[in-house]
């Protein structure tokens, strides 16, 4: 079973502060890993795609920490590095994976978009994970484990019909699944107003699914809402639709951003790392950052030296 590498101190008094510290560690780790990945891509050490979570860390961290890591299930998509690190803190496994090395969490076979560890599964084809998540929720319900399933999806992915099929079934069969929409207002290069008619906030309501909408600039806020929602889903064994407004600070993948400088600058003001870093003493922050920087540097170096997977590691038939 997984445990948080940086698990909150049991000391109740320091709980809030400790949580903030834990969140900052996770968020900074995510940000820094992804900056490294973009650099490595630019230097030619990575091929394929790299969709970063930069700007969305508060959502990833807030939501994942509200789960019971010992049993809850996560499905996610192409933009899952943040959730993965918040889930299991496996920096080495992620960097190795994306660099295509056999030290990667999936031996380098899956790459950035196809990651799996313990109860987390990602897939790079939009939409299809949603019924998978509903199926997982059904399985756990039948097994009686009390686990809930969360599935992350993007605003653009709300274009896929299978999402609505899944809403209907999850509600009809009262399944404990949290549909977690990260609405960053853009899909690849296309702004939301060219993707959608009406409001995304209400899309699940017509299937009798309780819904809520929040901003993702403050990790503590996301966390507390997520805790509430997760409890509800677990207790009532009913689906919930949580609409989280976030900002995609980086390019869609690698370096393809066609938004204006002004737009990106204005988004940067919502950077959730800014907000949380203000609430930590500078000294502590520096200490945290330094440790993480070293850790990531070491992970990158290790991945550089690691071997690529071989044909014998591929399954056939």
């Amino acid at each position, binding site marked *: 079973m997984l445990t948080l590498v940086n698990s909150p101190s049991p000391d109740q008094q320091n709980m809030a502060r400790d949580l903030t510290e834990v969140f900052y560690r996770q968020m900074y780790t995510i940000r820094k890993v992804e900056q490294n990945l973009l650099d490595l891509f630019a230097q030619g050490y990575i091929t394929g795609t790299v969709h970063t979570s930069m700007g969305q860390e508060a959502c990833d961290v807030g939501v994942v920490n509200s789960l019971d890591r010992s049993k809850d299930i996560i499905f996610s998509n192409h933009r899952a590095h943040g959730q993965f690190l918040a889930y299991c803190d496996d920096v080495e496994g992620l960097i190795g994976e994306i660099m295509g090395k056999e030290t990667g969490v999936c031996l380098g076979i899956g790459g950035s978009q196809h990651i799996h560890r313990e109860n987390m599964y990602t897939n790079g084809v939009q939409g299809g994970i949603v019924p998978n998540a509903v199926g997982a929720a059904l*399985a756990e319900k039948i097994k009686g484990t009390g686990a809930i399933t969360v599935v992350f999806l993007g605003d653009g992915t709300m274009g896929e019909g299978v999402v609505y099929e899944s809403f209907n079934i999850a509600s009809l*069969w009262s399944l404990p699944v949290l549909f977690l929409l990260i609405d960053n207002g853009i899909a690849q290069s296309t702004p939301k107003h060219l993707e959608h008619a009406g409001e995304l906030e209400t899309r699940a309501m017509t299937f009798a699914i309780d819904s809520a909408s929040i901003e993702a600039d403050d990790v503590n806020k996301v966390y507390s809402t997520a805790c509430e929602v997760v409890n509800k889903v677990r207790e009532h064994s009913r689906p919930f639709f949580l609409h989280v407004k976030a900002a995609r600070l980086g390019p869609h993948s690698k370096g393809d951003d066609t938004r204006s400088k002004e737009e990106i600058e204005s988004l940067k003001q919502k950077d959730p790392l800014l907000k949380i870093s203000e609430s930590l003493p500078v000294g502590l922050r520096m200490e945290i950052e330094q440790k993480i920087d070293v850790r990531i540097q070491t992970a990158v170096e290790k991945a550089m030296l690691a071997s690529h997977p071989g044909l014998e590691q591929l399954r056939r038939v």
Partner: protein
Amino acid sequence: MEKDPNAILLGEDILDPYGGAFKVTKGLSTKFPQRVFTTPISEASIAGLTVGMALRGMRPIAEFMFGDFITLAADQIVNHAAKYMGMYGDQMKLPMVLRTPVGGGRGYGPTHSQSLEKMFLGLPMFHILAPSHFVHPGEILVQAISGSYPTLFLENKLLYPEVLKLEQHSGVINRTVHFDEHNYPVVVLSNFPDKRKADIAIVAYGGISRLLGPVLNQLAQEEIWITACLPVSLSPLPIKHIQATTEGIKKILVIEEASPAFGWGSEVSAALYDAHAGQLDGPILRIGAANSVIPASKPLEEKVIVSEEKILSAVFEVMAW
């Protein structure tokens, strides 16, 4: 279902008293109400749920009302079911079965009569099975869901009313069974008693079996000796067993229900040529449906799909080479 509490059934209209469009699931929802789910008309999600359940250790079996609708599950089959087992670098098992009735002959028309399995043949980490009435379909279904792989399980509509033919001898027809690498049966029929070599080897599967009984009987009367090989596993193809069965036979006829272009028979034929080219009298003949939609009008449909007459005339054609 009795034995495995993880077995789950889902599909459209499968609850009693209806029990599914072809009544295959009849009685099960009454016996196992907690594990039989009638679904909305959402084929992509039916497949997607099945995959998700299998990922979490259940053994789900989904019914698609008509094989034609498997198209709606293509993304789940190709990019989800078949990928999860291969792309995470682990040894995950993903036992799940998508059952569906296929084939023509009932006048259902162009979108309810197809045999679309060729869409998924050769897909890595995905199995396709098509029992005939010379094996026990229920046992094979249990075998599939007890195994490791996501599986498409094809039930030819015209086999539903057929009586199973599991005896070793039935009139002139002898039946032997081999087992392939995944332990699925490869049935070999012959219409002659002794150890002689057949005049023609027929390779076919699924619903074609229904036609082979009468055809082999009739040909026995005309003293045309046939060995017919009917693998249950279409993909992966138990080619070693098929090659061993056809070894030394000088004429080969490959039959499938769909149109032969780019079909199951293309692979079978190519692989048999690979093994036997140079030892054959004439080319390998492949027959199947006409390269058109399957019409609703039944008399025309009969001309389009494979029939006893078509097989017989193919046999005579091959004999004349």
